[in-house]
């Protein structure tokens, strides 16, 4: 039995697949591809598939991760080719390898967020509103967790890696805590920004948000996969 860590891309049409739907989609892809995946034992055996870090609906990514075990005479490379042949073009494996790090090693994830300008708000106005927002001493937000809601200070949690004014919007790169113990969605920071604008600068608006995950990282800053 060979443990495999697959990296896959989720783009365009595939970014609207929810995490639950993605798991079902992958299970079926293994059947279609006739890749000998290991089944759990017990009363109701099912294909063992593990996604260490879920991706929010609407986010694109080239660095999603999925673990499984090969339970038959097939190389990882062949398994990847066979899976890609039955997966939609917007959902494709890009790499397979033996897992090195443990799931619990995941500590951060990097994101790219683009906020589009709307009519009436120029990129410069949006940028300066953002600078004011992020310059606050604390940015408190309610976060839903499995055990109810908790207040987090996003100022402490979010690292701003880059802020760039575009012709028609604002481009951010963020590093957020990720993993099994603490996980903060960058969408929460954007929600906080929207709430801040409503409170302090109602004339400033932004349109669509384009979001992508750029990397899944360990505590030492190295790539998880």
């Amino acid at each position, binding site marked *: 039995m060979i443990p495999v860590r697959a990296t896959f891309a989720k783009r*365009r*049409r*595939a970014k*609207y*697949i*929810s995490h639950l*739907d*993605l798991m*079902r*989609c992958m*299970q*079926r*892809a*293994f*059947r*279609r591809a*006739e890749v000998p995946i290991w*089944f759990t034992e017990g009363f109701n*055996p*099912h294909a063992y598939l593990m996604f260490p870090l879920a991706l929010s*609906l*609407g986010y694109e990514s080239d660095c999603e991760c999925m673990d499984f075990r090969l339970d038959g005479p097939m190389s990882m490379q062949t398994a990847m080719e066979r899976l890609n042949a*039955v*997966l*939609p*073009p*917007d959902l494709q494996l890009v790499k397979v390898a033996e897992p090195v790090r443990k799931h619990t090693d995941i500590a951060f994830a990097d994101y790219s967020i683009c906020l*589009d300008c709307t009519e009436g708000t120029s990129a410069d106005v949006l940028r300066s509103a953002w600078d004011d927002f992020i310059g606050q001493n604390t940015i408190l937000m309610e976060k839903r967790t499995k055990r109810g809601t908790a207040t987090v200070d996003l100022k402490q949690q979010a690292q701003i890696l880059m802020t760039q004014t575009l012709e028609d919007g604002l481009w951010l790169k963020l590093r957020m805590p990720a993993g099994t113990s603490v996980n903060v969605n960058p969408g929460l920071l954007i929600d906080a920004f929207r709430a801040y604008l409503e409170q302090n600068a109602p004339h400033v608006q932004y*349109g*669509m948000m384009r979001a992508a995950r750029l990397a899944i990282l360990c505590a030492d800053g190295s790539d998880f996969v």
Partner: protein
Amino acid sequence: MLFERIEPLLLNVQKPARYIGGEPGSIMKDKKDVRVRFAFCFPDRYDVGMSHLGMKILYSVINHRPEYWCERVFAPDVDFEAVMRAHNIPLYALESLEPIKDFDFIGFTLQYELCYTNILNMLDLAGVPLLQKDRGEDIAPIVCAGGSCACNPEPIADFFDLFFLGEGEEVDLEVMDLYDKMKAAGATRSEFLREAAKIEGVYVPSLYDVSYHEDGTIAALTPKGDAPQTVRKRIISDFDKVDVPEEFVVPFAEIVHDRAVTEVLRGCIRGCRFCQAGFLYRPFREKAPEIICEQAKTLCQRTGYEELSLCSLSTSDHSRIEEMMDGLLTFTERDHINLSLPSLRVDNFSTALMNRIRRVRSSGLTFAPEAGSQRLRDVINKNVTEEELMRTCKIAFAAGQATVKLYFMMGLPTETDEDIIAIIDLAQRVVDMWFGMEDRPKGKSVQISASVATFVPKPFTPFQFHPQDTVEMIAHKQKLLEETVKGHKRIRVSWHSPETSILEAVLARGDRRLGSVILDAWKKGCLFDAWSEHFRFDLWQQAMADNGLTMEFYANRARSYDEILPWDHLDYYVDKAFFIKENEKAIAAQTTPHCRMQCTACGVTKVTGKPCFPVQKEEKV
């Protein structure tokens, strides 16, 4: 492609995966190689429409032709519809994400009368004129429909260029071939429609005039030009050889029936007098077990589904069912595939097979006696006896089940209060049997759910002449049920409000005058009428009144045998004379044996030219 315009909007709606396509199994083609584009529209939400086998079959059949491209279209839910209208997004197809207005065919499947307003809404969202007469002489788009409700398309005749009657696998392609040829030659819409009407199974409503008597009944239906006086439905030439989908579009989002489905037989031998499907889909044809197994296996492999279901009106009427089940179980057990078996009578199975099925999955037991008393079951020709019900329940109880769901109807012809009370009596006898069983499952308690639907008389059944019960009659019977069930702790009864069934009855047996009613109801805001949270009976009543019509005329009126019915010019192989004979027998509470026991001379063999069942030697003894 509308992708760039749709994308910013999708994250603000529920379950966006329904609106963006890209699923495994969806067919992409290069527009340059495609000559005819077909938008297959299901007039309900994605999760309902994606469960429909007919769409998967025709999607596959059309897309097998490289020069034709069939794409899927569903009714957007109300939240996305509002977004589409606010941002001027026209109704688009899920594969190309291109507006269906520019397609060659816009084809709807008609599964249920209460989806008619959704059709108008989808045409409106697409930007296509709703009325056929307003579409002009450009050949495209041809707005067409098929499916079971096409057997009486008169209420929606104003909106369609043509209807497909019967099975679509072959006639759809013939019509597309004709279109392909005539479009290239520069033909107009009416030229094309006149030619299409010559193909068997194609009904072009604009080629007929209907006149009415003063009492509202039909005086005459007159074909224009050389349109045929009657239009006969199509059936496929060879059920074993017909093209079946080797793969499905496998959705990301969960849908109602999310599994592989293999069709095992078409038609029904039973002849239940209330059942439209039992007459519409004649003759009875079954697939050979080896073909069923091969097709099911391929489908499971190509879709990756972990569940397989069999589709038919009555799977247990397959003459080689044990062989078929054996073959299916052989690969489903090996590949960890759940086999689910709807419409299956378990009482004639061997214990060995029962045990294997149970090991695969134990889903709840359902049984449809349809009527509480034996007399009324004889009237409707539902040839199940109480003994069979008891035997089936006993097998299921012995196997560890404790809940049984029973389906009944109320408002059946000749029904009395005694028949209603008999529903509860019958359910109680199942309860009594449970308590009489020594080997009943320990630690469980028996629960009988009796679901009682309001009967809707349908075209092409012996009951097409009957009035539907009035609201008052149904209310009385529901109250009687409620009182009777008191004190029966193990029995739960459920029913729906009758308004939906009344509208269904009106639309099912309606004529062309209902076209303006449907249009007005939609304009007043009626949509998703099949969904109780959207259903607005009051608006429908207004729309009827505005057009000088009454629901009673269509729902609660008895038709005489010599009345011209709105669907009399459509030929579904079964003779009107047969329906009259069956109705007479119903009133006398006489049963008719099923087709395998004895040919009922319904009219089918006159068209097919051969008996439905070869007479076998051992049966002659």
